[in-house]
């Protein structure tokens, strides 16, 4: 167990390092001259001399490797530099925005888990009957509707037509519900299939025949015998979906006027605000890697067979 954790931690660190390299390289190799942009943003006429001065100021003339080492060294200490666009400290912006995006992802993951378990169980309890067909239909619909459209529908339904929930802003739980639901739709649809198919497969295993021979009823078999068997599978799939939520956040946060990381990232890309883009990318990648680490540990806890390989 300890061995496994230390090994996985080492892997994660290597991965994180490589990820930082990739995200730095990508941003640096993007076309366009950031010095020109900054010069224009400052309101001055972008004469070649002034542009040159700006470039010097933000360190564009240093060798790439040096820029990378400087940036990473600062980032590790929690200093992500200064936004080219606004001149404010990126780290200060991040703290607040991470909380917003964190709220979005945690809430959506919880909702997606609940909905997918409910739909999946419904289908597995009455396979190929009406509840199964409804659950399958909803999954198909949910998985094939683009998130921005789901968000628009949510606003139209809950805010405009019924006026139940605020259509934008980050002001307490009531304003969180619509963004949560919007982000949760796609993962809930995908995960409900994972639950449904996993349960069906588990229900045809020989140990279910044993369970039946013990006199257990269908509900007991589904919950006591089949559910523990699909838990590792579900956690794996959930991890992937939660990781992908960072991407969904980029779409959904601007939609609901949430000032989260997704919104920050999008603005950063639009204005070639490299410091912001790099910081967001690095956080997204770290989040991905941490989620994967947690998933691996959770699987280890829920599947005694894998636990044994590592003990």
């Amino acid at each position: 167990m300890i061995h496994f954790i230390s090994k996985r931690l080492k892997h994660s660190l290597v991965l994180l390092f490589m990820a930082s390299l990739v995200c730095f390289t990508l941003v640096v190799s993007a076309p366009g001259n950031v010095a020109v942009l900054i010069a224009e943003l400052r309101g001055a006429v972008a004469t070649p001399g002034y542009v040159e001065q700006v470039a010097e100021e933000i360190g564009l003339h240093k060798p790439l490797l040096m820029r990378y080492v400087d940036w990473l060294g600062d980032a590790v200490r929690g200093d992500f530099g200064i936004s080219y666009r606004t001149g404010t400290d990126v780290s200060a912006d991040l703290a607040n925005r991470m909380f917003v995006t964190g709220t979005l992802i945690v809430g959506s993951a919880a909702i997606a888990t609940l909905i997918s378990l409910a739909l999946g169980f419904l289908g597995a309890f009455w396979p190929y009957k009406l509840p199964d067909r409804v659950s399958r239909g909803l999954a198909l619909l949910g998985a094939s509707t683009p998130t921005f459209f789901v968000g628009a529908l949510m606003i139209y339904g809950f805010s405009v037509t019924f006026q139940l929930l605020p259509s934008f802003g980050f002001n307490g739980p009531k304003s969180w519900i619509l963004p949560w639901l919007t982000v949760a739709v796609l993962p809930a649809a995908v995960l409900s299939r994972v639950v449904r198919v996993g349960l069906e497969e588990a229900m045809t295993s020989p140990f279910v025949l044993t369970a039946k021979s013990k006199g257990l009823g269908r509900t007991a078999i589904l919950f006591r015998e089949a559910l523990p068997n699909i838990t590792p599978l579900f956690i794996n799939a959930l991890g992937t979906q939660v990781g992908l939520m960072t991407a969904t956040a980029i779409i959904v946060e601007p939609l609901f006027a949430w000032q989260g990381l997704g919104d920050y990232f999008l603005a950063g890309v639009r204005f070639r605000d490299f410091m912001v883009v790099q910081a967001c990318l690095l956080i997204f990648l770290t989040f991905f890697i941490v989620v994967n680490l947690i998933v691996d540990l959770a699987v280890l806890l829920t599947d005694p067979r894998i636990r044994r390989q590592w003990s």
Partner: protein
Amino acid sequence: MRDEALLNVSNLTVNLLTAKSAVRPVDGVSYSVRQGECLAIVGESGSGKTVMNFAPLGLMPTGVTTMLSGSVKLEGRELIGLPEPEIQKLRGKSVGFIFQDPMSALNPVRRIGRQIAEMAELHLNMTPRAAEARALELVKLVGISDPVARLRQYPHELSGGLRQRIVIAIALAGEPKLLIADEPTTALDVTVQAQILRLLKDVQRRLDMAMVLITHDMGVVAGAADNIVVMYAARAAECGPVDKVLVSPRHPYTRGLINAIPRREDPIGSEFRGLPGIPPTLGAPIKGCALAPRCELAVPACSNSRPPLVRSDDSSVLVACPVVNQGKAAA
């Protein structure tokens, strides 16, 4: 009570319907088992021996429609036509099951202790704590060393033989009166087979249960069973006390089966003596004797009508063969 059969099956026919096909794996079979008695049901793969025992108790895969006719009486209670919730109450409580492959019969992600204890909770209305104690008792009963540690383990941590002992412990946990063991030793190492069989025999005797032992191993039959039913192509070919049927088989199929067992006197390198031909597929019921195409005694009349089980010169042995039974009245 002892004279009355615990399980009385008469003229049981099972039809299985799937979306694409219909088969009749059991065709008019009768037998009975008394308390404390062990009945062996022998036959090759596909002869219907498992379906015959599982179908009346509702243990069939989903997606298959099972149609039963005839009569299956457990402690005088008719099982055919009994609704599933009622049958569910009997499973584990009145009838314990042991399966062929202990490697897959246990839930891989649940502790062994829980898998045994939940039986006691379900059928003996025990508290979880009492059920745990009962599980410990059962694990000791089936002869597992270090029982306390075993209860906390998962199935994959045990060997095949130990897992089969756990399956037996689960089957015994509800204090059933009848034990149905479906090829309990087939998937095990040869050295372990004898131990498991001895254990089964031992608990059956100590708990005075009836046991139906489904097998195709004549050695198992000789070692454990009191009576035997030989199945061929969904029908009973011969039945009677084990010592009589095995020593002087009358039906040509039983003779062929026993003859096929390799003997010590066989010269090294000699060929196996198998029955020629293959068993029929279980499609439409066969009009005459199902064995006729493979039988050395067959006469044209064999294919005319289905041979009934007839009492042989020994009144405890019934044989379904028109040639052997020539001149005898149907039983």
